[in-house]
């Protein structure tokens, strides 16, 4: 793969930088099932990178490889110019990679505020006992972190539900709270697993707006999986297409749209 190191500016004026993460010949197997087969692609600084494909194509597995939840049998993950050793998910998170989940994984009984605060865990240095006493350093730390969290709450316009237990929120808002928690970690790469699944048109528009704003405002690199083709084509700078664990396309939305393999995978093709 020819690593293009130069930077460029997109049509809408965003700066896309050098490659920040690179997947090299990743193969992931569960017993005899090959979930991902020899896939390589890269993610560049500041871009919105989409991974699409039919059901069971291996998209979520790929995201789980990036987030350190799965460890591929073959291949390497390169992050910020160095090969990443096998890591636990919390170590990956500490490196500045945050994610949301396809089926929401929030603490239902806790308030929105507390949920978003958990996103700051990687930025806290005091231990449980200090935090329990809430005195001195622990207190100063919590106040500083709370400020960050409030900025995220303001950014995602969820002030009105700040103190509401998450269990009482409608689905669309829960998704937004999950995004808030991921953002609170101030990630350099944000992984979104189907951020718009199950939403109505209006909620999708809101979520798209927020994703674009996050990318624009904080320069966060975003990798997302999404089924809604309209959303993917509108949002992303480059798209990876997967089918049956293989990569069948990679390029700008226009390139992908006109790729015969991709059309076949989505529309089906007569097998002779």
């Amino acid at each position, binding site marked *: 793969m020819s690593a293009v190191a130069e930077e460029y500016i997109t049509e809408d004026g965003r700066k896309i930088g050098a490659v920040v993460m690179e997947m090299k010949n990743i193969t992931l197997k569960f017993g005899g099932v090959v979930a991902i087969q020899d896939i390589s692609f890269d993610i560049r600084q500041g871009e919105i990178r989409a991974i699409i494909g039919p059901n069971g194509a291996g998209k979520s597995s790929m995201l789980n490889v990036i987030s350190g939840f799965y460890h591929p049998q073959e291949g390497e993950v390169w992050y910020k110019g160095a090969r990443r050793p096998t890591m636990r998910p919390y170590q990956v998170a500490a490196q500045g990679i945050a994610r949301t989940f396809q089926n929401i994984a929030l603490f239902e009984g806790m308030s929105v*505020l507390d949920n978003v605060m958990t996103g700051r865990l990687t930025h806290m240095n005091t231990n449980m006992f200090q935090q329990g006493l809430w005195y001195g350093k622990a207190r100063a730390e919590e106040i500083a972190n709370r*400020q960050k969290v409030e900025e995220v709450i303001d950014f995602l316009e969820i002030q*009105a539900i700040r103190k509401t237990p998450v269990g009482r929120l409608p689905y669309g808002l829960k998704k937004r709270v999950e995004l808030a928690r991921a953002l609170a970690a101030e990630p350099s790469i944000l992984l979104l697993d189907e951020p718009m699944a199950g939403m109505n048109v209006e909620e999708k528009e809101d979520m798209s707006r927020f994703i674009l704003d996050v990318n624009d*405002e904080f320069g966060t690199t975003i990798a997302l999986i999404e089924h809604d083709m309209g959303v993917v084509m509108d949002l992303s700078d480059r798209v990876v297409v997967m089918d049956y664990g293989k990569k069948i396309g990679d390029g700008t939305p226009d390139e992908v749209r006109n790729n015969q393999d991709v059309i076949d995978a989505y529309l089906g093709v007569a097998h002779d």
Partner: protein
Amino acid sequence: MRFATQSGGLWEERNLAQPSSADGYASVPSLLKRNAIQFAEKAAYREKEFGIWQTWSWSETETEIENLALGLINMGVNPGDHIAIIGRNRPYLYWSMVAAQMAGAVPVPLYQDAVADEMAYVLGHCGARFVIVSDQEQVDKVIEVQGELHQFEHMIYLDPRGMRKYDHSHLHEYSHVQEQGHAARDELRPEMERRIAELDYDSKCVMLYTSGTTGKPKGVVLSNRNIIEAAKSSAEFDNLRAGDEVLAYLPMAWVGDFIFSIGQAYWTGFCVNCPESAETLTTDLREIGPSYYFAPPRVFEGLLTQVMIRMEDAGRFKRNMFHYFMNHAKKVGPSILDGKPVGAMDRLKYALGNLTIYGPLKDSLGFGRVRVGYTAGEAIGPEIFEFYRSLGINLKQLYGQTEASVFITVQPDGEVRADTVGVPAPGVELRIAENGEVFYRSPGAFVEYYKNPESTADTKDPEGWVATGDAGFIEETSGHLRIIDRAKDVGQMSDGSMFAPKYVENKLKFFPNVLEAVLFGAGRDKCVAFINIDLTAVGNWAERNNIAYASYQELAGHPQVLDTIQSHVEEVNASVAQDEMLSGCQIHRFLVLHKELDADDGEMTRTRKVRRRIVEEKFDDLIDALYTGKAEQYTETEVTYEDGRKGSIKATLTMRDAKIVPVSTKVAAE
């Protein structure tokens, strides 16, 4: 009846006899200076942001406003310019209004929820060179129409979010303007002081566009005299003072907000609190606990509906206790509030109720500290009004309009009733014309409609009497004014009897299930009505009775809902029949509309008053069907979504007949 219009000689003579300042303060900037010294460290503004109430003292406020004013002068604002201000209630935008005045310009606040086309008219009409907006949403709207605005030059935005990619040749960030102003302070300060010194009692303070129930909005020019005199006398009337708290949440383009949050706030030095966002309003209200509160009847109705729904869901013990003590409060609460004699046992029971029910309820509504509360704009249902008063909230009514700088009549403490709007406010003279239209003359009466001498002459005569456009009469026993309806809406039916739609509509709207009603019948032999159901109340009822519905439209067309509404209509008919003058206005047929009347579709004004004529044109097929006696009518309606796109709703509406109550032997006077 209109008075002959002559040149303004008389009015000018009257002006000469008027004071040229109030205690030496002839403009809002001069009041700011006074407050910055007198109240220096006291809170002037608060806004909840990032979960915390941020406070600015009067002296900090002065610095902020000065920097902005210097920045505006630096950018080339000239004396007499109009500066449009668009956004939700935030301290920064209130400062913009005063900063504009300090730069010699006139602030023109606009309704922030107006769509781009509506904004284009006002921006074009006032010829604003500078526009100050809150955020990207407003920036986009102005950019969308800027091609039509020949005088538009610069836009200043408050929230930089999402703005980085915009072409910044005409765009400026608020904080940068302030920084530049601050940097140029030494150089520009004398110029600013000169411009402030030039402001006198008769110079323009603000221009507010009327919401335009009919036709295009008109720019009402209000002078410093109008605003300061109105603020001064009303503050004295209700004993408002520094230390009072208000929550600023009503549209900034509305005259009431300008009087409360600028006029009275600067005159008395009380603190203006801005909510975090529109959605957090109830929480913020509760946290602030304002001592002076204003809301249109619709807000009080909404709150009462919520309380009642929540009480229905409460346990039996709590529910019974609530009803027991509320009944007692209804009996003695208003008398205790008015300081009338009440028996010792009743007082004791009321005190107990206050401890267990009224106090906690008031606190959770955010009314725990309200000393003076006002409602105006529409008639308020007597039950709703009594509910709040019986809780011990000093809720009163006032009658006013933009042209009067709000105050025409107000209810003094102890003389509060649901069906009147009070006695003339201090300094206001009232007169009722032959046709029943109310006229007033006051120091708050507006200067003119901007660039519209015909309308000015139509509304205000050379002696300074202003036509309100409302028909009403003064009750002989109490001296209180009672408003019947808009004078032009009061018409005649084909048999010559009086047609006053608002009177009947208000009776309908007092039912929690009815959100809005529109009565037709001028020039016809009988009356018919459109009704909007209240989704909260009817939806809750449907849930309780296991009635499934998928949409507003389906619920609105449900036979059981129609039955309920029919019973309301018939109750109203019975009550209308009691009134000799208006017994002809009983509703013969009605329908429940398939969509809510909405300002985005032009059916209502931004202040949520029905635009009768537009509704009549838009739904003429339905009106015809009502009059021709059809049982059903198919209709298609165009709707506008919040982002300006259009769609259409199709529905088949059921028409119903309502029982008419025979009028008693006396025949209505012709």
